[in-house]
């Protein structure tokens, strides 16, 4: 092994032919990590902002979050206060409307605008809790199924198939009927119904990552099963899960509204949008505003979140990236 090849620079770090010059500039380690993160964010924003709809969705979503946070400041009235002298008051721009009830009032004389503003809190809360439960459960099941394979995989996936075989709202209804009506139980039911999507997505991602050599390398170095699953593999599977999480967020809001409408979700007088729709059902012909505005609120929220999810997919999925 004494003979040397000619292109020798291995002992001399200055002479690397292969070193990309723009990366050589020395920087303190902390700063380079910061810059690195900023660069990743900038790249993400570049791809995200290519999609106009996604940006619009993000703006609407941020407004919604702000509304939910500032509800006590923004709402003109308490969401449960009943103005007995103004039952079914029309919105301000309709004849007979007043600035007191900008979007009108409901059959019990409660201000619809205030209820919608407070309702944003419930919708976002439902979205966050449902997605958190579904993602956690789905990741645990999917990781175990994809990583261990064999009987664990078959068992877990067949159970997921069974859940997926039911129409989702029907299954959620059955679960709520068993658990008892209420917002908490409705959220648990919706999370259970949404969870198989996450389990399947995680499993597929884990199976494709498992074959990569860095996983074998980590094993050779002595990583335990748990470390391999959660530290080595999971961070590389997150992109599709984030996208699915966003899209499920809107499904959760929609399903919760549907359960509320059917009387199985949030119970009156909770100002939840679906429940508001249900309470106003009989007044559709007499007072269109009591059903229109909660319905519009649901529509706009779900649309905004879906658009945002599309943009996220564009930005996070390497297969869709244009260079």
């Amino acid at each position, binding site marked *: *092994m004494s*003979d*040397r*090849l*000619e*292109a*020798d*620079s*291995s*002992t*001399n*770090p200055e002479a*690397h*032919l*292969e*070193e*990309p010059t723009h*990366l050589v500039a*020395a*920087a303190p*380690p*902390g700063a*380079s*990590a910061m810059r*690195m993160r900023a660069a990743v964010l900038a790249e993400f924003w570049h791809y995200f902002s290519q999609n106009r709809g996604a940006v619009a969705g993000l703006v609407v979503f941020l407004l919604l979050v702000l509304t939910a946070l500032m509800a006590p400041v923004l709402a003109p009235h308490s969401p449960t206060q009943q103005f007995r002298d103004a039952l079914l008051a029309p919105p301000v721009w309709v004849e007979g409307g007043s600035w007191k009830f900008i979007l009108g009032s409901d059959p019990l004389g409660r201000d619809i605008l205030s209820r919608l503003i407070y309702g944003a809190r419930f919708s976002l809360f439902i979205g966050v809790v449902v997605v958190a439960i579904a993602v956690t459960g789905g990741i645990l099941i999917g990781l175990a199924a994809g990583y261990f394979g064999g009987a664990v995989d078959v068992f877990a996936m067949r159970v997921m198939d069974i859940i997926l075989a039911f129409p989702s709202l029907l299954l959620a209804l059955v679960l709520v009927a068993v658990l008892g009506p209420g917002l908490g139980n409705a959220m648990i039911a919706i999370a259970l119904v949404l969870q198989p999507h996450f389990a399947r997505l995680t499993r597929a991602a884990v199976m494709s990552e498992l074959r*990569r*050599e*860095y996983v*074998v*390398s*980590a*094993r*050779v*170095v*002595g*990583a335990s099963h748990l*470390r391999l699953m959660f530290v*080595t593999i999971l*961070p*590389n599977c997150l992109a599709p899960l984030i996208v699915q999480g966003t899209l499920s967020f809107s499904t959760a809001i929609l399903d919760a509204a549907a359960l509320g409408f059917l009387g199985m979700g949030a119970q009156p007088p909770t100002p939840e949008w679906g429940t508001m729709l249900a309470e106003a059902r009989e007044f559709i012909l007499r007072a269109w505003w009591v059903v229109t505005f909660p319905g519009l609120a649901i529509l706009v929220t779900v649309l905004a979140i879906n658009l945002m999810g599309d943009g996220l997919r564009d930005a996070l999925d390497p297969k869709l990236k244009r260079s």
Partner: protein
Amino acid sequence: MTPALETRAVTRDYDVGATFFGKRRVVHALKGIDLTLERGKTLAIVGESGCGKSTLARIIAMIDPPTSGELLIDGEPIDIAKHRVTSDQRRKVQIVFQNPYGSLNPRQKVGDILTEPLLLNTPASAAERRDRAMGMLQKVGLTPAHYNRYPHMFSGGQRQRIAIARALMLNPSLLVLDEPVSALDLSVQAQILNLLADLQDEFGLTYVFVSHDLSVVRYIADEVMVMYFGEVVEHRPRDAIFADPQHDYTKVLFAATPRADVASIRARLEAKAAG
């Protein structure tokens, strides 16, 4: 002196075509491999795709268990099918893979990639791990400034240096190199091979070098083992085998190597002009 590596009649079978109704078919990837390798030497395993050389490399690196036969490292028998690999055993053998784009975790910083082996196998403190990783970066020709970067910020050659550095973090005595330069271009290949040669001198490493590239083998190997369909057809010192290949398959393999030196290109052109 006990050899660094010894295998006795190692076999490995794979079940293929085992469908729900179909009959099971068994492929014998390795059909009884015997080899001994002295400390500090380099054994090159050559052969065509699918001849079992990577399977053997994975068995030696304790990734997969052999179906039958014995694996001895430093004279100690190892059976990963029965016992978990201990930290001590793991510290003796490490592996470098072919594709430096796939063998580094894209979500881990170089520093974390290098310190992970120490974290999992030694009681070293965080500061100590960091110092050793920094030192190792310099040994493989990178700089401490690379410590906080992610793998995608490096070229193929640099990534392979990182992979080599990770393999050396536990001070192994035996390093399995599974086609470590086949994914790199020629000038970088030379740099990595020289780096490997330097590291072998410095740490007294024993190499098992899997390759299909005979010009690389000629440069780095002390012994050459030619494999064909799971069997060893020839196993002799490098100079002997290159000067006078005995087995038919070895001759075919050597003849199939394209020659790119000036003399042979001239000879080929002259032959073409004449014909």
